[in-house]
């Protein structure tokens, strides 16, 4: 039930951000984290960014996600 998806923050307005995941944009609440910056990768859970991801490793995961797509991550 608590799936987490790595997303990229492409825009920040106050404590809200716009996150992008494979081209889909979504509003996301940033209040559970400190100092989120545009370009950061975070884990999205139930509308909130719950943790930052280390950029290098996040990219790797995203690449994996892409490669694995169709295999389905809800």
């Amino acid at each position, binding site marked *: 039930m608590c799936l987490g998806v790595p997303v990229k923050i492409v825009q920040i307005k106050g404590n809200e951000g716009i996150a992008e995941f494979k081209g889909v944009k979504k509003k996301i609440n940033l209040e559970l984290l400190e100092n989120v910056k545009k370009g950061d990768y975070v884990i999205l*859970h*139930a509308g909130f960014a719950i943790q930052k991801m280390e950029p290098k490793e996040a990219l790797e995961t995203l690449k994996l996600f892409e490669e694995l797509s169709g295999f389905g991550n809800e």
Partner: protein
Amino acid sequence: MNRNFQDEFSNSKITQMLAEKIRDTARKIKKNVALMEVCGTHTVAIFRSGIKSILPENVRLISGPGCPVCVTPNNYLDRAIALSRSEDIIVCTFGDMMKVPGSSSSLEKEKTAGEDIRIVYSTLDALKIAQQNPDKKIVFLGVGFETTAPTVAFALKEARKEKIRNFYVLSAHKLVPPALKFLAESKDLKVDGFICPGHVSTIIGTKPYEFLVREFEFPCVISGFEPLDLFQSLYILLSQIQKKKPEISNQYLRAVKANGNLKALGLMDEVFEKEDSLWRGIGTIPLSGLKIGDDYKEFDALTQINVQVEKSREPKGCLCGLVIQGKKTPLDCPFFARKCNPRNPIGPCMVSSEGSCQAYYKYGQVKDSRRSYGSVYRTLACVILAP
């Protein structure tokens, strides 16, 4: 299911390499080992990864209590259902809870019967509904582990800040480490190592697991959810067993920090209070749940809204309780895939998409560990095509 992926996956050099290492290490261990994946998301990811098919004969993966839906007891559901029947109440819930059978009904049945029950994606959606319906009471069903609890805590803070007085939470939040402690102490648990939840750990960090090594000498790995994460985690765990050096390894380094998410933990502390909590099928585990703390009690649906709740009973014959403790597998249940299936679930483990029974039902079970990937997918096809 996508064929390309399958090819890509079995062609993946890293995976093959890791699979080889896993087999190698398992051979050196020379005894049977059972590893428990605590988290339901892992259960599903493990089935999807095909990892079970490369497992050496002496290594077994068993599912644990890792789905909040599965461990929420019937009296909670019965109360939620009773609340939904009040004229002036709108119940908001994550989708997973809808189909779970209570003692005599389910939220889904109540919704069909006309009760105002709304599926939300986030606690903030529920807050919005509260603002749009000032003449109704909005009850959010707070179900989830440490991953979800901070988002509920935030919503309550926000409700206070925005002076939203018609928003309530019925809390059934549960904590993972106390449940692990309970399992670790249980005599008949035959587990040689734990795959600890990834997303719970993004919040709580790695420290709350340390007692597993210190007091019980269990090998542990905190794992990510991609196939490669799982392969790597398995290798790490087996290596710990082989070297007889139990520790907390953090494979999900990119997201899990030693201290977790301090801001989220602080919010939880501010809003909730720990309490003894009933886990479906397991029993009461000391200080394993979160209730709304005194400071926020005006938002507590349990104490602020009075309803008549029917006498709860658990589904008869369902083995969920033993399944989530890793003591039985879904295949041991006489109802499995017969009377009990995702369309007509008897117990919660068949309802939740991360419940062990549904995962077994959907992805089939590979008994012979030597089978190839192909047969995993054939099993799968059989399950899907079966009338």
